[in-house]
């Protein structure tokens, strides 16, 4: 009812201009419009901020094994790793290869891929070794593609 009143009020103000084609907006329409504007401006504002705030450093990939979190399940050892992109540009197809050498036989090798790693983003992965990573030498290499 109050909306109808609002509409009447605004219509009275405009006095039927534009040969009745143009209708005055109701309170509900104004609210919807303002919310819409706020949403669109938030998106555009965020993107403009990104244009200026985002650096242009190429990806810098850091692979950090979390040795303190190694856990044993049966005969296997579960090792978590944090893979971080310390650069600004996005890295695509980040491939990490791990090698665990315990001095007994051939080193154990493992590899996995992270599809995308944005600037500043960290992904956590878990790999499973037959030997305890805490008791051997763990080395890693990584490759990526800049899209």
């Amino acid at each position: 009812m109050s909306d109808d009143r609002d509409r009447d009020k605004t219509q009275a103000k405009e006095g039927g201009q534009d040969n009745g084609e143009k209708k005055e907006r109701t309170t509900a329409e104004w609210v919807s419009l303002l919310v819409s504007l706020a949403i669109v401006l938030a998106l555009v504002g965020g993107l403009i901020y990104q244009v200026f705030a985002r650096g242009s450093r190429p990806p810098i990939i850091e692979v950090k094994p979390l040795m303190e979190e190694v856990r044993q399940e049966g005969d296997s050892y579960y090792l978590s790793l944090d893979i971080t992109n310390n650069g600004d540009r996005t890295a695509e197809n980040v491939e990490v290869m791990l090698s665990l050498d315990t001095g007994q036989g051939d080193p154990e090798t493992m590899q996995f891929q992270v599809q995308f790693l944005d600037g500043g983003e960290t992904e956590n992965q878990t790999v499973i070794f037959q030997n305890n990573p805490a008791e051997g030498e763990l080395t890693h290499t990584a490759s990526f593609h800049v899209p």
Partner: protein
Amino acid sequence: MSKPQAGSWQKELDDIAHGMSGAFLFGVPLLFTMEMWWIGNYTEPLRLLIIVAVAFGANLMLAAFAGFKEERSFFANVLQAVEALAIGVVASTVVLLVLNQIGIGDPMHSLLGRITVQVLPLSLGASAANVLLSRGSDKMDEAESEIGGNPWKATLLDLARTIGGALFIGFSIAPTEEVPMLAAQLSPGQELALIGLSLAITYMIVFVSGFSPREQDQSHGPFQRPISETTSSYIVALLVAFGALLIFSQVDLSEPLPSIVAKTLVLGLPAAIGGAAARVLI
């Protein structure tokens, strides 16, 4: 449309629900396309802004000719385009959140990127659904009658429809891996055949299929004669396809011209079909 006694809040909610339904109806395939998520990750913010601007322009065009509200002034059309964009943003955010393709802890760039690349199809869906569900038909009749015998206005209207349809389909397919894959496999002869096929299909949709009253068309703009309309709208579709490929980094101006042409021709087919369908349906 809505009864005068219906509450304005109810009517507004109906309009939003209508727009949202259209967004999901037309945009959901792209929400489930992984190339779209990836493109959101690596597209530069400036390009994302261009996508928002293109989405706004396309929605403005649709609002002018067949929006989901009844108003008609330019300002009202601008506002309606803003509302369609907002519907696109909300729909994109909600679905990507539920599908776990964005999360609170994501970097701002990938969050905004993934949401933004979906805004174009979703917001166009919000605007276009109304046309296809006939809510805009009165308005289109009005637009047609206003055009009357003015061939240039008729041409402009057809141009707008072609761009809208080509944008909608072209932007949906441009990010996919299939475009460069198909383009790489085309011989020059097949490229010529693709041009012929694109022209034949769009001619058929608009002038032979029986979908459109245009078969006994009465308008006489330079864009309206079957052969000239088919070829000129194909050129428009190719331009839209090229723009879409540029925005989604599928073509690079430094790559060999034949490769750019091949990709544009590949995407030109669906874009031309989209343009033709829009001219028939809207």
